[in-house]
């Protein structure tokens, strides 16, 4: 009797198509974003996340049209990220129908953007996305993860756990945490990373990167302490439906919306 853990399919979108990469590269086409959104909505997805991975800024407006079309047919929360650089970008995405906007690289380059966007539109619609990679413990035996930006290409020197706490203090309402080591591998979430961040912040954490089977989703919640689990490829190619994933989680004692 209470809040359900969420399952969030993620749609990486470029040039109007959903694609899926492995370790942030090697893209494979997965279909039409509006059609896929409708399918996940029918299957009982709790939210949808769209990441605009278009490299150039030429086609940025395409994602706005896609979100407008999805928002007119799908009545669950929509998060959109990718290329958000200024408060004006947040405004445009919200006006197109996004409920939350995810900020990644620009949060590192300009942390004030997170504070400004949260101050203007409320923390409830500001998600900070963190791409993290495990690094050596620097003389200690504790795990440490570094924040990367620019789609995982650029190291920042920032500690992922400290960064998440800082983003919460600036007004992030949620953290979308992706393990770069696991993304696309299908070996499961980085549970130590997920748990370290989730236990360190008071805002919800979405675990991302590495889901290959339904047990991984269960582990993300029970061992990683995530409030929500995000996955792409296991859903895109019809391997599992959202419904199957939720039934599996429910069988393992996790409260879900069925």
């Amino acid at each position, binding site marked *: 009797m209470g809040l359900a853990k969420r399952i969030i399919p993620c749609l990486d979108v470029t040039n109007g198509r959903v694609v899926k990469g492995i370790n942030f590269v090697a893209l494979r086409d997965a279909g039409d974003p509006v059609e896929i959104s409708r399918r996940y909505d029918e299957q009982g997805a*709790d939210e949808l996340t769209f990441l605009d991975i278009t490299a150039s800024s030429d086609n940025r407006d395409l994602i706005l049209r896609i979100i407008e079309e999805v928002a007119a047919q799908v*009545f669950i929360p929509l998060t959109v990220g990718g290329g958000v650089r200024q408060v004006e970008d947040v405004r445009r995405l919200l006006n197109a*129908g996004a409920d939350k906007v995810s900020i990644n690289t620009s949060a590192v380059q300009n942390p004030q953007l997170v504070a400004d966007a949260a101050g203007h539109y409320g*923390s409830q*619609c500001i998600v900070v996305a963190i791409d993290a990679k495990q690094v050596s413990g620097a003389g200690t035996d504790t795990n440490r993860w570094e924040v990367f930006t620019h789609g995982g290409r650029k190291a920042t020197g920032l500690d992922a756990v400290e960064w998440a706490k800082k983003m919460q203090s600036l007004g992030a309402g949620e953290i979308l945490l992706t393990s770069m080591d696991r993304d696309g591998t299908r070996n499961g979430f980085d549970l130590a990373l997920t748990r370290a961040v989730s236990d360190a912040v008071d805002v919800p954490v979405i675990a991302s990167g590495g889901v290959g089977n339904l047990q991984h989703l269960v582990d993300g919640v029970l061992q990683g302490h995530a409030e929500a689990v995000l996955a792409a490829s296991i859903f895109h190619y019809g391997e599992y439906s959202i419904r199957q994933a939720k039934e599996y989680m429910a069988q393992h004692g996790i409260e879900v919306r069925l």
Partner: protein
Amino acid sequence: MTDIAIIDYGMGNLRSVSKALEHVAPNASVVVTSDPVVVRQAARVVFPGQGAMPNCMHEMDARGLRDAVLDAAASKPFLGICLGLQMLFETSEEGNVQGLGILPGKVRHFPPAVAMQDANGQKLKVPHMGWNQVHQAIEHPLWQGITTDARFYFVHSYYVETANPEPVAAYSFYPFQFTCAVAKDNIFAVQFHPEKSHAAGLTLLGNFVRWEPNFTNKAS
């Protein structure tokens, strides 16, 4: 004449609310407006809101909307959503601001996450974000076709504490019981977001656009 006016005081994205209402009432004219005249002329009023309550109260007053909101809440089918529920009460812990005072009670912050645990001993995060069960406390036309304990989408850090049990239309648990919907005469207000709550949410909005509250002395 406008069938449904969604009050826009510059706090939050109202596109989702208007799209969902257009979806359930395709023949109605649905207008997002900050014009008090349009609000006064509308047959039904939706009062949404996001962000911080002090800003919401300030922006509403800056646009001269307070009297139009009070009139609508006293005279026609009125649906409050999220901050639009909280603002109906007397005071809020958020900035110690005064609300509209239409309903007795106050708005309180959830305790810090460390002070709240779920059944597995995991700390409960704030904001309360996601799909929670809505337990119906009364029978009401807006609950028609919705089973009690159906899940709706929530995102909030503050909740309302009513001064008396009379207006409570539903409650949820996080982890303690809190009021998530109130009903009084022509007013219905919810903490959750029906416009983002899939089939159950659309059913509630459909019930609202058809709702004919019984008025006794409320003619405007």
